[in-house]
Each structure stands twice: as C-alpha cells, then as structure tokens.
C-alpha cells in the first residue's frame, strides 16, 4: 500500500537510513551519553513523569509546556516521551526546532507547516518540540499560536522555556503546563553513581557531595563537572572537583569588579567590553555572574555589608533596564560606575 504513495515511500527510505545511523553509539560528552532514554530513568521529577506516563498509556497527549531552570530534564523528558509514545518510528514523526536554529516567523511557519502537512507514518500522531520558547519574539510566538491551532488533529506540540511568564497567554492557555523544579540532592547523587559505575571511575563520597553542592540542582552541570574531573584523574576526590569548578568559573568578572572597586574605571570597562563583545557573553549572563560574584565577595567580607545592599539595588535596577530592551553593554558600563565609590573592605 505504501507503493502508491511517494511521500510514504520516501519516509520509509528515511526510516531505513536513520536506523542505520542509530547503530554506532559514540562516546563523547556524558551529558548526552547518559541522557535517560526512557521516562523511568528520569530522576527528581517523579510527579511529572507519572503524568506523562498516563499519556503514553492513553496513546494521546495535549500540547505540553515544560517550564523550569536549566539542566532539570525538560529536553530529556520531551525526547523520552516522544520515543515511548511514538514507538519505533519516533524519529520520523518528531521534529525538534532548536533555539540555535534561526527561528524567525518564516522558518517557524515553513518548517512546522511542511512537517505537519504529512500524515504520521507508523505512529498515532506527530510531535513538534520547540525549546527556549521564551526567547522567541512576541511576533514569532503569535505565529506559533496559529500553527498550534491549525494542526491539532495531526500533531502535538511540546514547548520548553525557563520562565512561563515570558510566553504569551494564548499559547499558555493551549498547553498543559508542567513546572520542572531543580533536582534534589539524592536525585543527582543517584545519577552520578550510575554514570561513575558505567565509566568505572572511582568517586569518593566527599567528591559526590561537593559536585552536588556546586551543581545547584542542575544535573547537566553535575555531569559536566564529573566528566571534567575524570579527565584530570581516574580517582576523583573533593580536591579534583574544587579544581575543576574553579577552572570552569569565569574569572574575568571578578577581575573586572575588583578593577572598578579600585577606581580603575577604564580598565574595568575595557574588560567588560572584551567579555561581551569579543567573547559574546550575553547581558543576561553577565548580570547573573556579576550578582553571584558580588554576593560571594560579600560572604568573603571583601565588600562591606552596607555597600552590598546598595550594589544589589543597582544590579536589580540595571537587570530590569536590560530586560526592558536597553543596550546591555551600555547599561552594564553604567552599572560598573556604581562600584567606583565603594571601597574594598580590608
């Protein structure tokens, strides 16, 4: 029966080809190697997994929205759900539009339309997965909303985002919203131990605990720290973990703040420009790092408590200004001037 249908035929060919590619499992980053392939393997999101399994049982699902911080399993859950619910030919019926792809209105429209126009082959329906929807423009979100309405019979959407508040209401109302929370210590420990066993690495208890501490509920970060530590030695101790974390932490921001506190505004500004213009760090990431460094410095008592509160006030204000659509670099330069009048505590 497929022979009469050229589209179905090409799809079958694709199936054969992709299955071949599936064969060679490569090593590489552990975050991908040990990404849970099934819903059962997912740690720390039990209540969500339970509800997702119900969709599998029923063989249908509404449009879903996964919101939550980075590294808590949004993409993993989407992939695992698609795999189980779509069955053997999930690859052919699953479209992932990554945030690193161009996602203007046009690409969203044409890609999704082309994908949805075809009937699902070997699966009950098709799934479209879009991540970081909160970084899409309002216009693109509105375009997306139309697509969601048009293909309700043949396709379901899974959207993921960090903050559901940044998503327009009409989309939110069309989705069942799942709020992923950062993963608790025991969940991370469980996963780290699985990986360590599979990779035959020696991981002592203190090391695990320090990884959990630095990961801050982000499992991707935890596994990255683990693999980075494993690259420096086969036996992982607390010291290895500390070394890796301090190596991976961007140091430029600390240096920049210190320069500003010393009154060297030009030096601080040059460094800021270097970080943002040359290294391409986004304004949002910069302000997060500045906040973290300032609080760390207050803890180490290298910034006075009164000054700390004033600085946080400024940081919050400039954070808001950047989100409001101002030029992040100019706003952060202005924020740097706030450090000039604050003396370093001895």
């Amino acid at each position, binding site marked *: 029966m497929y022979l009469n249908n050229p589209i179905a035929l090409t799809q079958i060919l694709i199936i054969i080809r992709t299955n071949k590619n599936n064969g060679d499992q*490569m*090593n*590489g*980053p552990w*975050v*991908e190697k040990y990404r849970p392939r099934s819903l059962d393997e997912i740690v720390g999101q039990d209540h969500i997994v339970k509800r997702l399994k119900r969709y599998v049982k029923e063989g249908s699902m509404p449009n879903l929205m996964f919101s939550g911080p*980075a590294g808590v399993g949004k*993409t993993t859950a989407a*992939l695992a759900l698609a795999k189980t619910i779509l069955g053997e030919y999930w690859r052919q019926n699953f479209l*992932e539009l*990554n*945030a*690193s792809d161009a996602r203007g209105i046009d690409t969203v429209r044409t890609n999704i339309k082309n994908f949805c126009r075809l009937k699902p082959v070997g699966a009950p329906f098709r799934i479209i997965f879009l*991540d*970081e929807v909160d*970084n899409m423009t309002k216009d693109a979100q509105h375009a997306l909303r139309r697509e969601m309405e048009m293909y309700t019979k043949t396709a379901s959407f899974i959207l993921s985002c960090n903050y559901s508040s940044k998503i327009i209401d009409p989309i939110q109302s069309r989705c069942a919203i799942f709020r992923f929370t950062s993963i608790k210590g025991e969940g991370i420990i469980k996963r780290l131990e699985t990986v360590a066993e599979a990779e*035959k690495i020696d991981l002592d208890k203190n090391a695990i605990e320090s990884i959990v501490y630095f990961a801050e509920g982000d499992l991707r970060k935890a596994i*990255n*720290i683990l*693999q*980075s530590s*494993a*690259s*420096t*030695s*086969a*036996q992982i101790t607390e010291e290895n973990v500390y070394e*890796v974390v301090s*190596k*991976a*932490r*961007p140091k430029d921001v600390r240096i920049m703040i210190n320069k500003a506190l010393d*009154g060297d*505004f*030009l030096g601080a*500004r*040059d460094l800021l*420009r*270097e970080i943002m*213009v*040359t*290294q*391409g*760090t*986004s304004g949002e990431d910069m302000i997060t790092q500045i906040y973290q460094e300032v609080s760390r410095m207050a803890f180490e008592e290298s910034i006075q408590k009164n000054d700390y509160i004033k600085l946080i006030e400024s940081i919050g204000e*400039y954070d808001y*200004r950047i989100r*409001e*659509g*101002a*030029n992040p*670099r*100019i*706003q952060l*330069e*202005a924020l740097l*001037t*706030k450090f*000039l*009048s604050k003396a370093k505590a001895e």
Partner: protein
Amino acid sequence: MLWTEKYSPKNFNEFIGNLKAKKEVIEWAEQWLIGNLQKCLLIVGPPGTGKTTFAHLTAKEFSDFVELNASDKRSYDIIKRIVGEASASRSLFHDGMKLIILDEVDGLHGTDDRGGIKAINEIVKKTHHPIIMTANDPYSKRITSLKRNCKVIKIRKVHTNSIVAFLKRICVNEGIEFEEHVIKTLAKRSNGDLRSAIGDLQVIAQGKDQISSADLDIVSQKDQVSNVFDSVRTVLKSKNFAKIKDSMRLDVNPPFILETIVENIPHEYEKAEEIERAYEMVSLADINFGRAFSTRNYTYWKYSFDFMSLGVGLAKDETYKKFARYRGSSVYAMLSKSRSKRALMDIIAQKIGNRLHLSKRGAIAQFPYLKIMFTDDDMAYELVNYFGFENKEVKFFRSKKLKKLKKPSKSVRKQSRSVKKPSETNFTSKKAQKVMKKDKTTKTAPKKPKILSKKPKKDKTNEKSENKGSKSKKKDKVEKQTSLFHF
C-alpha cells in the same frame, strides 16, 4: 543673474583650487578623445567645491552630453535607456562621443530610483562610454560598490584664502567697495563652500556700492552640520545650557553619538561621582532609544538627546581646563577585530547545540568544561569525533595540537584508564619530557632518546610517551643536520 552662474569658470584655467584633481580630469578627457577607453570618473567632495562644474567643463571637450541629476527619476530602466541612446548616437555620427553625467549618485532614492545603482554598476563595468559621476559623501553605502570600478577623484574644500581672493575679484568687477574683514568673515563662514560664499556676497552686496560689517547680519550663518567630535567636545567641555542643547543638531545616527560620548566620558571627567552621574544619564538615554526601537515610535528620541547631552554635560562639577584627545568608540574596532573569532565560536556552538539539544547560549556555557575535558588526549579524541570538530575548532579548546591518530578502540581506552595510576604515569611522562627538553637545549646525545623510547614500551600503558620519544628522535636528527650545516 545669479553670481554663481555669472562667475562660474568658463574653462579649466579659471577653476580655483584642487590642482591635482584638475590635472587628472583633463588627462582622463584627453585619453577618451584619442580613443582610449578609460574607467569611469567618480568625483567625490563636499558641496560647493566644484564637482558639477568640473563635469560641465569636461563636457565642453566632448561633442555632446546628457545629464541626469537628482531632480530626474533615475530607475534601472531610465538609466539603461539614456545610456543606450547615448551609445546609439555615437555609432551614427562616429566622430564625437557623448559624455554622460550622473550627478549626486549617492542621493539615489531607495524606492523611487529602484535598481538605479545596479544599472550604473553594469554600465560602469563595461566602460564603453565616458561617464562622470559626482557624490558628496565618500562613505555612502550606495557608492561602495561603485568605488571599486571607478577612478575616484577627491575634491577638497576650497581654501579660505582662495575664497577671499575670488570674492574680492567679484567685488572689483561689480564696482563694490568692501572692508577687508567683511570678505574674510564671509569666506570663513562658508567653511570651504565657494558656492555659498558667492551666494552670501550677492545677497548683501547686489545693487549697492559698498558693504560693511553691519551687512553681515543679513545673512545668518549657514546651518552648520558639525561632526560628532565637535558635539562631544561641547557636551563634555561646556556647562552652557543653550550651547549643549544646540550641539545635538547634527546629522549622525543618534546611538552612534551616544557611543562616542560614552567612550570619552572617562577621558574627560576625573571624579568618580561625575562619571557615575554621567553614566546614569547615558543609561536613561539608552533606555529611551530602546523604547523608540521596540515601539517604532521615534518621538522618544528627544528624551535621549536631552539625557545624553544636557544630562551628561551638567554631570560635571566644574569644567576641566585640560586637553583631552577624543576618540571613537573602541567597541566598533573590537567588533571588526573579533569577527573571525566570533564566527568560529558560532560554528562550534552550532555543532555542540545540534548534538546536545542546546541553544547557542547553552552551548557556550559548555565551553569551560569542554576546555578541561580536552586536556585529556583520549577524551579529546572522543569529543572531536563526536562533534566532528575540525583542526581550527580543536585549537579553540586546546593549545596543544592533537596528534592525528585514529580513535583508540573502546577496550584499549578503558584499559588505559583503569590501569593508569595518576602518580606513576605522571612521573614517567614528566621525566621523559624533562629529558627531552634537556635534549633540545643541549643539542647533544642523540642516543639518549633511544633508551627512553624503550622504557615506556615495557609498561605498555602509555603509547603517548612512546610517540613523543620517536618524535624527539626525529627532531634530534633534524637538529643534527642543521647544526652540521652551520659549521
């Protein structure tokens, strides 16, 4: 009759200033007339310096000319047709050539003159016809492609002294008595624009037999389009409300003015509080640019202008009496300098994002961990194969070159990792390196590496050091040869 017409030069000898340009244009015309095809001429210079006059003087040398200036519609079809006609008439009469003058090509309108630049470019490339084009703004985007295919002649502002001399000649000719300083002021005010100077003179002098300084008030100073740095200087040096407000009347992209002011604040202001206050104003100006941009309602710009000029200007306690050299924003230089690096980062982020289901930002967040993982050779191989990194991209993560080896099979890798005891292997490899370094420096003992290369074979764990051993042997050989050569 307008004096600008009346006193416009009738031949090249009467032309004032720009001697070099004059010579080039004359030469160009002569070459055409004896039948040598030449590149098209593009005459660039500020208004009122004689670009169009140049073109018209040149036209006299040719039998005929057509002119298309800003008042004509200059779309693709029209330009093609005009040029087509010009070439047709040439073939009919054969003896003369028709000169084509395209005035103010940088003023071609985007929609009304659709395709105009394209048509000009096509014609210019063929160079079958003598064409003279003029333009005011040498940096206009519209003429960047033209500049490549044309002979560009730059015309400079006319020197004040030349203008003075010329104005005097007119006065004498018209029988007008003048005070020296009136003529000088007129010339100075014109800022190198001879046409406006003659125009001004006519306004105050026509029908009179004498001009004095009182007459100067009749003609107000021309609306000066000052450059960015003049404005920045006023903002940072002055505390005069009207003067600062006035300085924002310039025809430059407003965010660019802001960037230039921002760049120079810390070069002028010395107190931390002043910089802080000034930057607060900069921030507000920038917010209003953002609002204007996102709502497409550009009425917000007026607030930006006030914040960045008056706000910044009044942020200083006292005016500084010092010389500060103002500069353009370093951001633009940084952007162009880092272009290739950023492109590389984009490619890497794309490759990582595709495999790890991450956005560009998420992928960049992986960089520091990848940098650490790349220090281990085995893991580096795996990652390179996994992501499909090329040499250039590997270099981004690790300064040491990754030797071109096939990916070690899984079992070997596992073994080496489990056997590898950090202390021992570190010791041997370090020792090996040390000896090798010694070898390099002393340039002696070619036998030593042989022994060394045997050693690691025994414990079979570390093929890397073996490799290094053989390599150093090779190096030694080369060094030996070169040293022989030397003596």
